[in-house]
């Protein structure tokens, strides 16, 4: 009779202790991480971030990424040379729950890729994200030009 009682009290105490542990979850923006898009040949998020843009009407935000060849443009200002790969990832934006005054990325709407081959030929590929909606009318030619001419986010170097 006594044993079950002791066991019961003990497990209750342990439960309470676990419950009292400060609530410290790891916070990760899973929805905005591109891994849900299956056909991507490489992960753009692993490349060098080069430019950012906001489209206030569509309430989206985008980041332009480049491989090591493309990111030379950030330092030297040269044109995108052969071997350059650019990605533009566009997210639906959402209000930052921790700061009134900020918007942060939510689900991915689209991922676009432009590559420059050895002859300098450019090709454009489009990947649909989970938040894509057909109202966004992306025209290949136009999108490629937007990506190639995006003003870069320049910062001083030493």
């Amino acid at each position, binding site marked *: 009779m006594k044993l079950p009682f002791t066991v019961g009290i003990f497990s209750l105490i342990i439960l309470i202790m676990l419950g009292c542990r400060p609530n*410290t979850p790891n916070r*990760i*923006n899973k929805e905005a991480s591109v891994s849900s898009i299956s056909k991507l040949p490489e*992960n753009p998020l692993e490349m060098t971030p080069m*430019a950012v843009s906001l489209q206030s009407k569509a309430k989206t935000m985008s980041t332009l990424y480049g491989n090591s060849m493309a990111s030379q443009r950030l330092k030297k200002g040269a044109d995108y040379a052969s071997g350059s790969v650019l990605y533009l990832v566009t997210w639906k934006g959402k209000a930052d729950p921790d700061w009134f*005054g900020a918007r*942060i990325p939510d689900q991915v709407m689209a991922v676009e890729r432009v590559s420059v081959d050895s002859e300098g030929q450019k090709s454009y590929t489009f990947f649909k994200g989970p938040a894509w909606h057909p109202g966004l009318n992306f025209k290949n030619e136009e999108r490629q030009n937007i990506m190639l001419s*995006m003003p870069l*986010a*320049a910062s001083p170097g030493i």
Partner: protein
Amino acid sequence: MKFKIILCILALVLLAQLIRPKELSSAKAAPVNMLAGVPKEVAKVLETSCFDCHSAQTNWQWFDKLTPANFLVASHIREGRKAVDFSQWDSLAIPQRNALLYSALNAILSKEMPLSSYTALHPAAKLNQKDTGLLKNYLLNKAVSKPSAVENTANGNGQTFIKEVKKSPNGIGYIADYRNWKAISTTDRFDNGTIRIIFGNPTAVKAIHEGKTNPWPDGTMFAKTAWKQQQAKDGSVYAGQFVQVEFMIKNVQRYADTKGWGWARWKGDDLLPYGKTVKFDSECISCHRPERNNDYVFTTPLDIKDFNKK
């Protein structure tokens, strides 16, 4: 006997009233002008809930004046006015006024302010949804920074280079290679018209992928860059002029006095170190304090997977 003890205690309490903080004599200073340019009902909310500790217009209740309570109140006012002082309103430029209002609202939303020890005795200072709604509405409609029109569409001029970057006043040296780190998030800060990239070093990216971000491991570094928002003809907004880069460097032992993080900021194209004194970083910490259960980090980072590793 019992009676004597009570009498003694009473005498002591009365005597203690002779020792008073000097702030008490200067209390009830001239009333602060209502925040110029801000609608009356919005200013009223802040006056009622915040001015006792954040302005020259302090309003001591009789129980606030009793020793030792008065020492606590005086220290609140001293510390509070150091952090935020609404009496300075008239000398602030519009962007600084807006920044002050946004940080005030965020301090309210995160339940940091007004101090709960204060609202317990001054229930009128508690804010309700209507009060915060007034503030939110005002800020969203009247205090949103508009991006400037694009100055030069030409880009690809390459980087500007600086010979030498001075150390931050707390001794932290500039970290030059953050542009090779990964972007763990971006923010559109419509409160001050900037757009930001938050970079994480390899230790940070690994910690995110392994789900070990609370606490972040030693060696984690973040760089947050801010650019002015600049609007192109098509309506899109891009990163314009470079504003600043700021760092958080994790080392539990070395930075034990500053919550385990080294804090530093460099401003402008010539990367001038920010901060007047060694302790300038207390400003960083007090604004990051609402995130103390998240190791003082605001950003909810992207998980950056290596697609070749399954």
